[in-house]
Structure formats: C-alpha cells, structure tokens
C-alpha cells in the first residue's frame, strides 16, 4: 500500500453496535486504502458492514453504534490527519469539502421541505463562501455604478459588509447581523450569486432546464434527476473523495446506466477518488479500478478488478462469482447464512460456509496478507504462497 499515495486510509477499524439483543461486532479490524484518482469498489452482502464503513469515513456513527478502535487517515495537501480524532467542528469543515457522500435513495437523501436549489446552495454557502462573496462584491460594484442617491448609499453599506466578510469572515457582528431578519438583506446578494453557481452545477450534470428544476421540491423529481441533484451537492466543493453508497440500486436499469456513465465521466474530469459501495458485481466490473470484498465485518480480499474476476483467491469471492446468475448455468447460491455478529465465531467468520475450511480456520482469524502486487487476501489457504 506504499506505492501509490492514498487519499484515505482506514486502519484496523473496530465498530460495535450496542443493542437490546447484545453487542453486535459489526466491524472487526477493517483496513482499506483508497488511492488518489481511483475508484475502489467495496462489495459485500447486506450486513457485511459496508454502509457502516463508509459512514465511519465521514466520522458519522449513528447510535447505538460506536467506534471502538482504529484510525482513518486522510491526506490533504501533503499532511495527514486522523479523522477519528478530529472534533465535530473540524469534521464539519471536512465533510462535503474533502470527503462527500451520495446515497442509495436519492429522494430520501433530500429534505422534502426545501427546494433542490436551497439544498445545493447550502453546500456553496458552507464550503465556497469566499467565491460567493467575491462575485457578490463584483456584482454590487457594477450595480452601484448605475444608480445614485439612497440606493447607492445602501449599496455602499452592503459593499462594506461584504468586504468585511471577505477579510474577517467569522467576526461577531457579522454573525449577529446575519440572524436579524430585515438587516440580513446583505446576504441576498450571495444568495443570487449562489443561484447562478447552482444552475451551472445542474447543467454540468445534464439536468435539463436547470432554472426551473432549481425551485422544485424533491418529491417532484424523478429518481434519476434526484440522484443527479444529490451528486451535484456532493461534488460542489470538488472533494478529494466521494463515497457512493449504492447510488444506483434503487433506480431503473436504464437510468442506472446513465448515472454510472455520469459518475465515471465526472471522476475522469475532476480526478476524484471514489469509494463505490455496492452488492452488485456487475457494476464493480464496469466501473471500478480496484475491489475490496467485505464479509461479516472483515476484509476478505482486495485486488484489481481484472485480477479479482480472473483469479479470485478467497473462497467467499469465488462463491460470489459463482453465484452470479448466468444463462445456461444452474443457479448456485452460497450455502449457510451470515453468522450472528453478537457472538461471532472466534476464527474466520466464513468458516461454516467455506468449502475449503481447515482446522486452523476455527481458532485463528486470518490476517490480510499480500499475495502479489496489489492483491491481498485474508485466508489461511493462501498463507504459504507468500
């Protein structure tokens, strides 16, 4: 993992859920790295822990969950920070700006009582405020040239406030003023500026008629349009990494294809790293550069897409690939069920479903080891091959 620079690196993450039924050990030492400019697929069944992992990267842990141990490093402009050690205020500056996320159900990810435009503009206000202030000032200067008298005086006041915001954004009097209903009109300039940016953003995502869509509410949009809006929100601030949590699962197949193309295109243009979480191997094959297979809270295998499909090493991966329905072949499924994570087995968690299980597998948890370049596996079967 040292060859290429990684944007985000998850190191030995342990996460538990404290429920009425007991302590669910959801993540059992997960280690992953997402490299600069790559699309890393994270594949696993429901319950494997993939969604929780992606939320953890954003340091969003929903109770009753709790991160027990581990480190998540993010590489920003040459410096490394541990996400799990950052406080809430700092994380708020990280989320949406350096790492952002898109969700499975696009219309559920949007607040039903605010317009699309409002919600995308929020990101601009949060992470690209200086640009808004700058363009407001420019606009204001131009406007005040063509007026006079009272209006000009008002513009002058607004201008001084905005310039103050440029130099000293967090100053107390500005914050107080922005809360008072009538006096916070100076923010309207920024809102207009934001509107423009939002329309541009929507255009770049191939949303037709953006000026109309901007004032629509989430329930008025189709699934595909809504997902584009969510993607717009996520890419506004040009993040280093995008987490895509099954973004196409709830969409029609045709729309799915469109969105996938869109994501790949954007990724190419913006050089964003993507952590693509899914259970669909077909999507992985089409979209990702590398893949990590997650089973019951453990990373089973990590490899380049080609290598994983051509030479799957972990029995689980092999079984997954076998179980993809193919015309002419009998339908095969993996025997057994995912183990209860309240009392997980001591050794390998795939033990009771594995056709290659050995005695060692019962007692000892396999570690993730490197078999060849860019191909890691956590399985006792392959220990000798190093």
């Amino acid at each position: 993992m040292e060859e290429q620079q990684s944007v985000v690196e998850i190191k030995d993450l342990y996460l538990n859920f404290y429920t009425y039924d007991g302590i669910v050990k959801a993540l059992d030492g997960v280690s992953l790295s997402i490299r600069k400019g790559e699309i890393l697929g994270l594949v696993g069944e429901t319950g494997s822990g993939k969604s929780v992992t992606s939320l953890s990267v954003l340091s969003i842990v929903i109770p009753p969950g709790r991160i027990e141990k581990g480190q998540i490093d993010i590489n920003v402009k040459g410096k490394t920070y541990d996400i799990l050690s950052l406080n809430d205020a700092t994380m708020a500056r990280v989320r949406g700006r350096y790492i952002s996320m898109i969700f499975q159900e696009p219309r559920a990810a949007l607040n039903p009582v605010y317009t699309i435009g409002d919600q995308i503009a929020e990101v601009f206000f949060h992470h690209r405020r200086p640009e808004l202030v700058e363009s407001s000032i420019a606009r204001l200067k131009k406007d005040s040239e063509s007026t006079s008298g009272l209006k000009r005086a008002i513009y002058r006041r607004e201008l001084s406030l905005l310039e103050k915001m440029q130099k000293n954004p967090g100053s107390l009097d500005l914050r107080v003023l922005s809360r008072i209903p009538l006096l916070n009109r100076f923010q309207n300039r920024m809102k207009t500026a934001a509107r423009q940016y939002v329309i541009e953003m929507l255009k770049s995502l191939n949303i037709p008629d953006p000026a109309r869509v901007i004032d629509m509410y989430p329930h008025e949009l189709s699934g595909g349009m809504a997902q584009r809006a969510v993607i717009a929100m996520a890419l506004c601030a040009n993040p280093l990494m995008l987490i895509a949590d099954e973004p196409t699962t709830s969409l029609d197949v045709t729309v799915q294809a469109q969105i996938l193309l869109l994501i790949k295109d954007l990724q190419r243009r913006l050089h964003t790293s993507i952590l693509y979480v899914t259970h669909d191997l077909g999507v992985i094959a089409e979209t990702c550069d590398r893949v990590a297979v997650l089973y019951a809270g453990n990373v089973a295998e990590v490899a380049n897409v080609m290598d994983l499909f051509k030479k799957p090493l972990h029995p689980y991966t092999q079984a997954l690939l076998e179980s993809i329905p193919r015309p002419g072949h009998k339908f095969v499924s993996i025997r057994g069920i995912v183990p209860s994570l309240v009392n997980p087995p001591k050794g390998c968690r795939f033990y009771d479903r594995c056709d290659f299980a050995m005695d060692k597998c019962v007692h000892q948890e396999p570690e993730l080891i490197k078999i060849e370049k860019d191909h890691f596996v956590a399985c006792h079967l392959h220990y000798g091959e190093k």
Partner: protein
Amino acid sequence: MFTRILKNPLSVAGLVLISYNVFLAVFAPFIAPNTTGIVQYDPYLIPRDPALGMWMEPNAPTPAHLFGTSSMQVDLFYGCVWGTRFAFQLGLEVIVATLGIGLVLGLLAGYYGGFIDEVIMRFTDIILAFPGLILAMVFVAVLGKIGWNVLQAAIFSIILIGWPGYTRLIRGEVLRVRGEDYVEAARASGASDLRIMVRHILPNSIYTVIIVASLDFGSIVLTAAALSFLGLGSPAGYADWGRLIFDGVPYAASGLYYWWTFVYPGIFIVLFTLGWNLLGDALRDVLDPLTRRK
C-alpha cells in the same frame, strides 16, 4: 417480546402498578371489608361507622380508619380501595361497549363502504366535533334533568363519546386488510360476507385495536373521575375517586388541614393512570425499532 418489556425499568414499573391495582380490585372485600354490620345493597356505597355519627367534619387517619374520613364520616380507606374495583368495573363496562359498537360499525363501514360508510362516518364526525368531556356533560345534564340515575347517565355518556374513536380505528384497519390477497381468495372461493369478516378481517385488525384499548383504559377512568369531580358522576358517599375528591373540595379551602380528604383519592388515581400509561409507553417502545437502545 415479553422479555424485552421486562428489560425496560419504566415498563416494569407499569406492570407492577397495574398488578397492584388489579390486586386491590380483586381483593377489595378482604382488604377493606364492611365492618359496620350494616348491610349495603350497593357495595360501592361507603359504609359509615355508626360510632362516628354523621358529623360533617372529617376525622384524621386513625388505626381504625386508615385514611381518615371525609364529610359525613365516609371512610376513605374503603372508598379508595373499592374505588379501584369501581374503576376497573367502569372501565371494563365502557371498553366492552365502545369496542363492541366500534367493531360492528367499523366492520360494516370498512367492509361495505359506500352509503353505509358515509352515514356512519358522518355520525362519528359529528360526535368527534365536540371536545371530549363536553359532550358527555351535555348528555349527563339532559339525562339527569329527565330523571336518570346520574351515574348511569355518566357511564352512558362516556360510552357515547367513545364509540366513534374505535369505529374509525377499526374501519381503518378493515380497509387496510380488505385489500390483502387472502381476502380476495376467500371471496373467490365463495365465502359469505360474515364469514370473511369474522375469520379473516377481524383477527388481522384486532392487534392494533387491543393496544389502543389498553391505553384507553386509563383515560376512560380519568374521564369518569373528571365527571364525578364536576358532580356529574357518582352520588355522594360513593367509592369513586373523583367523587371523593369532589367531596373533599370544600375542605381544601382550609388548606392542608384536612389533606387526607383529597390527597389519598388523588394518589390512587395517579397510581392507576400512571400504570396504564407506562405500560402503553412500553408497548410502543417495544414495537418501534427507532427508539430501541440500551
């Protein structure tokens, strides 16, 4: 599911309270027996100790009269304990009646729809257009004026304001269940309407209803107590908490001097309603995964 209830301390408290109330109600004749030697035709009429006479002034608690006496030497211990029994009796009467009416009308309205549904719904709309207690007050006043026994009028009124709620609830459940496939199948196989209603729709809609009914139990007793407090319920000297407080109101004007005349019945009401509310909360918590947490 029961084990989950037991894990939550609040629901355990609720169960304890309800058991205690049930215990009091069932064993009232033994816990607070009639020791005066005077035979009552209505056990809820609080017997008066002849030794104390009929003085207006309440007596403080003594070993013979654990909670003291209220006006006319009505024994409060007897009143509070038998009041529990009375509460259960009244609550059950009302619930059975309102549920019964609600089931019949709700089933008819939901199953047949159309005109029957409209008519029934309009009736419920009209009754539900009145805030709870107030319509009951009207009925008690009118029936009282024409000579009805006030307590019976009160029970009648509470039933009258209660049935629309259940009718609507059951109708809603019936509508929900009616669209299910097994109902279609039953109809296709020629089952009669009544049979479908009883064998298929009823069992599947009853679950929510039972939960609501058990929550309602507490509020029915509260409503009855409120009516009695306004003088529109039980007669004087009756083992009804609301009535006892009503009888104690004049003595509240002397501050806390005669505290037992209104504090004891009040505590009994609180313990009763609290138990049912806690249980209701617990049921809701158990069924709602969002609020589950250790």
